[in-house]
């Protein structure tokens, strides 16, 4: 630590610029957002910042400053974080640690959950015309991109699924409304209730507030949804 502090002094000497030239709140925000492992919302930032700072304005300024850089300030689900610029993917590929390869089935199920949420397993199967294997849902639950969010108030009280903040983060979506092609899909009426198949969810929402036709999860539901597949061999996978 001592050597770091020394180092900093050296740096300061090397750098001719005056640290005071830049608004302190931008420095503070930068430091907080750089250091954090998790995206931070305005409230969390405000708590750490001196009183009287216009966080919103400072964030906007910071975002503009970094827009041209190799590192951008992005907003995900109303939380702020630094990410490498999207156009530099070619440079960063070597950083890639083995990314999860989802099966086609899993990708489809994920997309259906994203665009139709809250959605039950039966509804997913209705769209795909095929039974969803337990394994597919398990894999998706394991990614942390989907979550059981409630129970539909229909006979059998099936679990409803929705996406998480990690989903938004994974696909660089500021909000669910940024889902690609969502407007077109809505335009075709394919997400609309006019379909004879009886879909009643015109706009997907990951609002944690339950819909009118949803009941809250019960104790143990999470364990249920996340329970390993029936076959004991599959327990150790991944």
């Amino acid at each position, binding site marked *: 630590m001592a050597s770091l502090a020394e180092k900093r002094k050296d740096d300061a000497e090397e750098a001719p610029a005056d640290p005071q030239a830049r608004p302190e709140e931008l420095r503070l925000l930068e430091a907080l957002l750089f250091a954090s492992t998790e995206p931070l919302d305005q409230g969390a930032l405000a708590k750490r910042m001196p009183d009287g700072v216009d966080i919103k304005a400072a964030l906007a300024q910071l975002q503009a400053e970094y827009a041209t850089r190799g590192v951008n300030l992005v907003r995900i689900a109303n939380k702020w974080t630094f990410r490498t610029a999207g156009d530099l993917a070619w440079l960063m590929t070597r950083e890639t640690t083995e990314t999860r390869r989802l099966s086609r089935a899993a990708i489809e199920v994920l997309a259906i959950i994203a665009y139709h949420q809250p959605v039950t397993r039966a509804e997913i199967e209705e769209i*795909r015309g*095929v*039974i969803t294997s337990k394994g597919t849902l398990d894999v998706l639950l394991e990614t942390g991109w989907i979550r059981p969010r409630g129970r539909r108030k229909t006979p059998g009280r099936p679990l409803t699924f929705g996406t998480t903040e990690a989903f938004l983060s994974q696909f660089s979506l500021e909000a669910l409304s940024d889902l690609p092609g969502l407007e077109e899909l809505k335009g075709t009426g394919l997400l609309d209730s006019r379909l004879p198949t009886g879909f009643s969810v015109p706009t997907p929402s990951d609002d944690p507030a339950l819909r009118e036709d949803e009941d809250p999860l019960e104790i143990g539901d999470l364990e249920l949804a996340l329970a390993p597949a029936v076959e004991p061999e599959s327990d150790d996978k991944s």
Partner: protein
Amino acid sequence: MTAEILSFETGRPAELADGEPALVVDVEGYEGPLDLLLALARQQKVDLAKISILALADQYLQFIEAARKIRLELAADYLVMAAWLAFLKSRLLLPEPATPDGPSAEEMATALANRLRRLEAIREASNRLMNRPQLQRDIFPRGDPETIAEIRHPRFTATLFDLLTAYAAQRQQRVLASVHLAKRTVWSLSEARASLERLVGMAEDWSCLDEYLMSYVVDPSQRATVFASSFAAALELVREGEMELNQKAAFAPLYFRKRPPQPSGAMSDLPVE
């Protein structure tokens, strides 16, 4: 369950050719009858909205027939769809009944077309989703985040009552503890016996047991236990013939003496009872 792993030796749907192969594991086979229908529909190369369901039904039924000829095991889902399509086909070919109950054949065909369109739409959406810049694949968070150190300031709670209770309890406990220790110096029978044997060795003539006991016992609080143990031990010694006890009346002082050496023949007159 079986539907997802079912594999057909047929051409792959055109739409998949330019998909993201890296992310698609299950490119072989179809994911159920709707998937198969969609693939067949894509071969018609027309807008799904304008597709001929009749032609599609024919294609599907031919496909199923071909699969059956080569004795491919088909999941029930596929056969159900075949039956339904055969039914739909017959409805589409026959003139509509005057008063139809349930949906008309046209409505059923439209519903099927819509389902196919919806499946296709969700597939396109999922492709676009997967092509978005993904975290840890295209864009990256800070690789070496700095931890925010948490400095904990403990705020201790304790009340004056806690303090006084603790003080009183432990001071008291110590005092009581010494009583406790004293109580534990209960004479065991063997201890008492050993002491009595020592005493008896000195008492050639009748002596008052109490005197001996009291001269032995320092702490008055031990009197009862010493007395009880000694008495029991004395009885034992009498039974063994080492000692004699004598008491004039109930609650009168107890006298004892070492049993004088007996002539060998006089054993029988000893026990009074």
